Structures are given as C-alpha cells and as structure tokens.
C-alpha cells in the first residue's frame, strides 16, 4: 500500500519540553490509522504537526520532516496554508462557526479557494452533508444557526466542512470524546466510509474505538513511538511489553 504521509525522525519541542521524540512512522493511503496512548504521550502533538498547526503556537519548534506524497511539508518553500487545504482536521470539541448558518459553515472553507458560483456552492453543501449523513436531518433548515444542532450533529457538520474543501488527508483529534455513544457510533460509521476517498489519521483515547475503526494502530508512550502495526496484531499479539500493558488496561 502507498504511504500517503511519512514522518521521519520528527521532534516537537515546546520551549524546554521535548514533547515528541524522534518519531518515524508511515501512514498508508486510503486507510484509517489510529494513534493511541495515555494522556500526555504526545499523540495529539504528532497529529497537529501533520498540518502544521504548531505554527500558531508561540514557542513550539518542529524538526525532522513530514512528507506528504513525498514532499516535505516543512521545507522552506512550502506554504502552510496550501498544506492545510490538502490536510483537513476535525477537533476534539465540535467547533462550528457560531456566527454562521449551517449552510455557511459547510461552505466556509470551500469559499477560501476564491469566488464560487451559487450552483456550485449548493452542490458542495448538499454532497458534503450527504457524505456525513446529516443532509436528511438539516435540509429543511440550512439557514438556521449551526449552534442549534446537537453536539453529534455539530461534529458531523465540522466533518462536512472539512471534506467540502476536498482534502486528501483528514486528521481527527479525539473526534468523539465530547459525544454520546449513539453520536459516536455514527461518526465511526462515517470514518469507515470516508476511508475509501481519504487517508484518515485518528487520535483516540478509546481503545475499543481504535480497534473498531482503524486498519493500523500506532502506540505512543512518553513522546516516543513504541509500536506500530496492523490493528488486529496490536490488539492481540503486540510485540512490546508496554503496548500489551496499555491495551490490557494495566496502566494509562
């Protein structure tokens, strides 16, 4: 399988803190890779390095390289804005834009690419909302404020907003941790469908979720990659002792 994203001796520092230590890891195309590990193990930090979100954090320093289709996204001549249009992100808490309608939320990122025709916009909104299985629930109130939706609907709206931009990779940072079990199930089904078109990297606290949705699992501990492999292997016959301790619930 093709490697869509490749981390090569990635280090992230926040001031004096060494949060991610020399991680080398490949993410296969059109599949779901789960990043698991106890709190503070650097899993979110790795994820946020992939679309250069650390650029926003004063004092954050990233070294090593991350290749997207073989191009280092940290090279000097690479525009982070262009990278983020190819690598979308869904956050832990649903964060639709509160001043916008459902419709405007979906189209908000797409609009950044320049002027769009009304028909195109309608089509993008409809297809994006259909992909996240939200269309039937909101098609009669597209002009309503996005904050009127439930938490689970808001999160699917945020995913619709992300895929409307037509990214190649979608990063998900604990996308279900603020949701109830039914909303979580819907998002997990959605992830399963989305992987046909996108490469998905998901950080999760929930090991059952990792086992259910992912093809590959990477286990992080204290800023280092401990082990990475096919999900069934990691959850049945992990090679490292630490991995086994974690997935059997002995710590973390």
């Amino acid at each position: 399988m093709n490697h869509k994203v490749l981390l090569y001796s990635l280090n992230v520092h926040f001031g004096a803190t060494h949060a991610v230590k020399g991680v080398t890891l490949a993410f296969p195309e059109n599949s779901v890779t789960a990043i698991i590990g106890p709190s503070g193990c650097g899993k979110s930090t790795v994820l946020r390095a992939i679309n250069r979100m650390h650029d926003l954090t004063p004092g954050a320093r990233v070294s090593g390289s991350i290749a997207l289709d073989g191009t280092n996204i940290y090279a000097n001549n690479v525009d982070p804005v262009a990278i983020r249009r190819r690598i979308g992100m869904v956050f832990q808490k649903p964060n639709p834009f509160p001043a916008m309608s459902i419709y405007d939320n979906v189209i908000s990122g797409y609009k950044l690419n320049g002027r769009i025709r009304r028909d195109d916009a309608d089509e993008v909104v409809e297809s994006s909302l259909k992909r996240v299985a939200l269309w039937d629930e909101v098609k009669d109130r597209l002009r309503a404020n996005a904050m009127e939706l439930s938490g689970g609907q808001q999160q699917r709206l945020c995913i619709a907003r992300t895929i409307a931009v037509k990214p190649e990779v979608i990063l998900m940072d604990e996308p279900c941790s603020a949701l109830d079990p039914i909303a979580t199930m819907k998002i997990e089904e959605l992830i399963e469908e989305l992987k046909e078109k996108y490469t998905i990297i998901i950080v999760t606290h929930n090991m059952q979720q990792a086992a259910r949705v992912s093809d590959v699992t990477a286990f992080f501990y204290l800023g280092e990659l401990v082990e990475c492999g096919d999900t069934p292997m990691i959850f049945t016959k992990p090679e490292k002792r630490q991995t086994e301790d974690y997935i059997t619930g002995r710590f973390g």
Partner: protein
Amino acid sequence: MLQETDTRRWQIEKKLSGDFVFKGLTVVFAFTILAILLLMVEEMHRESLPALAKFGWRFVTGREWDAVQSSFGALPFIWGSVISSVLALFLATPLSVGTALFITEIAPQRFGGVVSALVELLAAIPSVIYGLWGVLVMAPWLQQSVEPFLSERLGFIPVFQGTPYGVSMLAAVFILMIMVVPIITAITREVLLTVPQSQKEAAVALGATRWEMIRMTVLPYGRSGILGAVILGLGRAIGETMAVTMVIGNTPQISLSLLSPAYTMPSVIANEFAEASSKLHSSALMEIGLILLVVTLIINILARLLLWGVSRQRGRTP
C-alpha cells in the same frame, strides 16, 4: 443528637453576623450612586426650568445664542458635539480595531504587550495636555499645510471650503480621534482575547490565511463587543470638554465646512458658566447640560446592551 446540631446551626444564622452588616453597607452604597444620579437629573431639570418654559422645543432647534439679547438656541452646540464626535469615531474605529488586531493576532506576544501598554498610556494623559498640544502644534500645522491643501484641491466639496483657521472642527475631530483610540483599542483587545482558540484553529485548519482567519472567526465573534467599544468611545468623545474647547474655535455656528470653527455642548458650559449673569443664561446652560447628560446616558446604555449581547453569545458557544 442530630436534632440538637441542627438547631444550633439554625441559631447561628439568626444572629447579627458580619455578613448581614456587609450586605447592608453594599446596598446603601449602591443606592447612594443611584440617588446621586437621580438627584443630579432632578436638580438640572429644576435649574433649567426658566429656559424650558421660555423656549420649549425652540431651544433645541434654535440657532441663535446671544446672551445680551437673552436669546438662546442650542442647535449649534448639539451639531458641533455630534459632528465632531461621530467623525472622530469614524476615523478612530478602523485605527483602533487595526491596533487591537495587531496586538492580539499579529505581533509576537511580548511586543504586543508593549504596544498595548503604550496605547493605554495615551489614555492616562490629561486632556488639557492634548488641548495644549492641539492648539500650539497641531492647529498651526493644520492651518499652514493640511487645510490650505484641502481647500485648494478639494474645495469644490462644501466640506472643505473656506478659510483655513487652524482652530476648527477638523482640529477637534483629530484631537478627539487621538483621545478615543486608547479606549476603543483597549476594549476591543479584551473582546478579541475572548475569541476561543478552537474557533481560530477551525479556520486555520480549513486553509485560511491569517487575514481570512480574522475575517471568518475573530471579527464575527467580536462584532457586537467591538460595536460596544465604539459606543463607549463615542460617550467619551461627546463629553470631552477641555481639549475640544482649546482647539475648536468656540464659534456657535452651523457650518458644513470642517475648516470653520464650531462649538460643542461641554465647551459652551465650561466657557460661559462663570459669566452667566442672568437667570435665563445660566438656566440655558443647565438645559444644555441636561441634553448632554441624556445623550451620554443613552449612548452608555446602548453600549452596555451590546456588551451584554456579547457575553450571552459567548455562553452559547461550546
């Protein structure tokens, strides 16, 4: 056993505690402020009764202000106050919002802090110093370079017609602009700091540039708060007395031209209260004060409502 403890606890509450005294004191203080405001309005109303009785609504629409003839109309002062403040706000708003955005979004944290402190320092300068600088430095500069240029090149527009005096509506507008920028900037900065990081990240993750991020999340989120800041600035501008008095030229006339001198409500009160010999004259000044107070109150209430709207909107977001 259990009952006994319950009774004892109940008794403690019945005693005259420090809490009760504290509560009483705060109530008294709070109502004192309210009483002062009401008494002031009542007193001003009573004092302005002669003018109210003599001129009625003509006081607000009259253009003539002549102490010798005892003919008083406040329109030139209302005009001067409103126009100078509104124009000053018109110039100060983009300047302040831009500065606040620079401090919160663009500048490195430490540098932003320095800029922010310097801007707030501007608010601490006494207005008489602004006035002195205005009349000694800015007005001559306006008279020699800016105003001649405006009247020569743009004189076909009525706003820029006339002789350059230096002391003028334009000078008042500039002085007020400089004086309200710190307030609007400080409040706008506070408002912008409340924009959640998650909102900004959402925009950036969609591939927004910094400006697009500001336009998509920061400005809509802070919109009504910024409006509140502008209105508080307006309140400040409309009540400003000393600096405006020193540069506006103090001529009770209504002229479209920014180059001609004008007069404001606070300025006429400050200039004439000492020499108001007749009962009617001082009562006319009182009525101007009343109008000013009412206008300022309305502006402040509007600002409160808008800021209140912001905090409610903030509560609604996840």
